[in-house]
């Protein structure tokens, strides 16, 4: 049974059209004139218990909106959404007891109080049995190295310390699913690393399902075997990170250097893009093609000096992709 399932989910935000001037402001109060923003546009996926899924996409792609719908904060405009077998919005409070939510950009801790006080309040709110609370608190404090500041007021903490506390707080009640909206935003390299290792371990050891949104591919490399990529509210890719490159239509380049110009060469496994005589550049059409395949097809008898395979950097691929904003869905 899928723990989360989305079928054709849509979310359209409606905002009254702003009109200038006082008269305009009064008119807009009564007018039915709206600007519509389709933040999520027909997204479908299913997530199994124990998965860790990274939700990636440029600014305004609809990531936070999707998280807010899955956690019951927002009501989808269309489509069906099921989390833990229930419709999130109408079962918001029931589901809340079984999920944990971390918003990277806003705090759930009590600003003026020590971290411990916020944790303790959650013990009551989530009705966590005292022995289990004590055990989880010790485990999380140790794993996230929070011992040094758990009794300090939250307002005195660094962003990295606070984020670790936020994540620990979301896990005190052993949620089945942990949603994180940009948990590593603004953290330095070391803090990011701590958070990533911790989340990967929580997913692996405790089987907690993790859904996180991010702009950082390393988050996905280190935490999430599965990647969902969205842009402009639409699903672009759903699969393993290593398959993203070919899904986005970016191919590997192969450069063959010869001692002497062998003349024109045509191959089935790769096709020629630039011919500089002694140096020829090919594009490999398929992820499955290996250099060996190309060399086998090429055969001996050429004065081959050097072979270079250029893997396009995945960040680069995504960057060009965002720039070109190919609209067609290319999900495999």
């Amino acid at each position: 049974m899928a723990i989360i399932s989305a079928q054709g989910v849509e979310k359209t935000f409606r905002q009254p059209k702003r009109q200038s001037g006082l008269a305009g402001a009064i008119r807009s109060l009564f007018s039915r004139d709206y600007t519509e923003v389709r933040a999520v546009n027909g997204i479908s996926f299913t997530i199994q218990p124990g998965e860790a899924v990274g939700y990636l996409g440029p600014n305004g792609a609809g990531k936070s909106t999707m998280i807010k719908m899955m956690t019951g904060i927002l009501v989808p405009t269309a489509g069906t959404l099921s989390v833990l077998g229930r419709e999130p919005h109408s079962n918001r409070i029931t589901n809340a007891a079984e999920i944990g939510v971390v918003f990277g950009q806003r705090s759930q801790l009590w600003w003026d109080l020590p971290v411990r006080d916020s944790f303790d309040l959650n013990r009551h709110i989530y009705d966590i049995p005292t022995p289990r609370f004590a055990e989880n608190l010790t485990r999380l404090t140790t794993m996230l190295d929070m011992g040094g500041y758990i009794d300090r007021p939250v307002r005195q903490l660094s962003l990295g310390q606070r984020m670790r506390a936020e994540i620990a707080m979301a896990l005190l009640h052993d949620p089945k699913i942990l949603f994180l909206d940009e948990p590593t935003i603004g953290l330095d390299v070391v803090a990011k690393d701590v958070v990533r290792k911790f989340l990967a371990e929580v997913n692996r050891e405790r089987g907690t399902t993790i859904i996180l949104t991010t702009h950082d591919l390393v988050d996905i490399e280190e935490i999430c075997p599965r990647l969902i990529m969205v842009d402009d509210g639409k699903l672009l890719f759903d699969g393993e990170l290593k398959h993203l490159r070919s899904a986005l239509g970016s191919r590997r380049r192969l450069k063959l250097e010869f001692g002497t110009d062998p003349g024109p060469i045509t191959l089935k496994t790769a096709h020629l893009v630039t011919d500089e005589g002694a140096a020829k550049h090919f594009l490999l059409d398929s992820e499955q093609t290996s250099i060996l395949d190309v060399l086998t097809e090429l055969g001996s008898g050429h004065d081959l000096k050097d072979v270079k395979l250029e893997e396009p950097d995945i960040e680069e691929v995504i960057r060009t992709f965002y720039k070109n904003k190919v609209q067609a869905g290319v999900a495999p």
Partner: protein
Amino acid sequence: MARLHVVIPALVHTFIRSKTEYPGAMVLGWLSQFAAYGSMYTAISLILARFGSLGGWVWPEIALLLSFHLLAYSLGASLSFVQFREMEEKVRIGTMDAILVKPVSTWTYIVFSGLNIGYAGHIVLALGLMAWSLTQVDVTWTGQSSLLFVCYLISAAMIIAAVMTMIGATALVWVKSNHLYQIFFGFWELARYPLNIFPLPLQLLMLTFAPLAFMAYVPVAATLGKPVPLLGDYASAAALLAGPLVTLIAMAHWRWCLRNYQGAGG
């Protein structure tokens, strides 16, 4: 929610701990409220001493009206005013989203994680004035009439909390709602005086869409046996029912706003 008896004290405890860092400011706040209301009431009593009565109400009766008004307001507002005035801010900076993912009723969480202990000054003043005025007015108290009086007070406090909730909830959909509090306080000021001194359209308004006549005038007039315009003999029943009725409307409005909550982006 079965565990409210645990969650509510825990919320209040946490909130008070977060405030007691500034005890001086709190005591100063109480004193200044006490002084502000005290001097305003003194002014009203002086005016009445000159003119004798206002709309047929003499000073001890007006004092009962003023103290009922203040007590009902403080009780209702401590559960709602500051919490819901901050709703705009909660929506704008996203605190609301965090509250919505907690496994307790959102209204309960908002109310008790911000229970306003700053109304202590109001309550002390209102109770003092009420105790004095009750010894001066011409009412024979029985067990039944005392119980009725307490129920009027609860109903009146419910109106305040319900209206504040409705205004705050509006921020969920419109993002901005604080200007509505100014309208509220306009009617709230009028609600301190006998309704019969106002023109008929205003009387009608304060008994319907802006039902603040029920927060003090109607129940106090019913207690004192004074004629109530438009309601007549139904004044007592209306005073009792107004609170629960407005609360039901507020609950429906609150649910509607939660369903139509859009967040503030980001």
